[in-house]
């Protein structure tokens, strides 16, 4: 069996205390910096929102329907772990 092996870090990174605001701004900047990457991914894979619904396109609809249960208003999506 092929298992990719990567070493654990030998030393922990020095912890730098950041405020929630600083972290959010860092994540926002990261998101903004990835715009070209998103455009490239969309050009390669197509519309990502439609693409989410195609991830399991090889799974028969009967199996999908087991993700839903009946409640008082009709069918409702449920998080079942046994399918």
């Amino acid at each position, binding site marked *: 069996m092929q298992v990719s092996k990567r070493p654990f870090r030998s030393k922990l*990174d020095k912890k730098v205390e950041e405020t929630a605001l600083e972290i*959010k701004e860092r994540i926002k900047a990261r998101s903004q910096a990835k715009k070209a990457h*998103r455009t490239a*991914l969309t050009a390669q894979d197509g519309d*990502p*929102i439609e693409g989410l619904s195609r991830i399991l396109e*090889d799974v028969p609809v009967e199996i999908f329907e087991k993700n839903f249960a009946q409640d008082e208003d009709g069918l409702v999506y449920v998080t079942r*772990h046994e399918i």
Partner: protein
Amino acid sequence: MSPATRFDFTLAQLPDFIVLDSSVLLHLVFAAPAHDSREKRLFDDAKTFLRRLKTAIDEDSSCTALIPLQVVTECFHRITITAISRLLPIGANVLVEQKKQPKLLIAADVPTKLSNFIRRIDAIGIEIIQPNEIPDLASSSFEEQMQEYMRDLFLMSADAHILTVAKCLEIENIASLDRDFLRIVNSDFKIYTSARL
């Protein structure tokens, strides 16, 4: 009058930062049965919300959307067991069978499916919050805060985890299509969801 705490995510102005619960993404991954109109409408609303989100992220950076690793884990798990179930007889216990035959994971092409999921998330512009991007809370530990949400809002642990990450990052806006999350308006949070939920 108290400020609004529930918003229709197909219409309301999106906030500067929002944390997504797994239910929004799962509604798109697991399409509703065609014969059920209510679930179909929720599916459509989730799609509309993600389109608005992508526009807000790409066009003027007016909104930053985030998911905790807990959401990734939940989605990975659901995709995995559904993909494996395709290879098993209807009614078989997927988790038991996968323990007996771990290579089902490969036969079901799970690594490709998970990779595709992350690529879609990435292309939409949803950022995954990394472990080193969760600051400590001032008043309690992460797990104490989780327990408080479970006790006070009657949430399951996965949902309490997501709320706690949002609390650590001081983000009050949560997008969800899970009815359990409607109770978070009784706390410090605002919920962005479908009007049909």
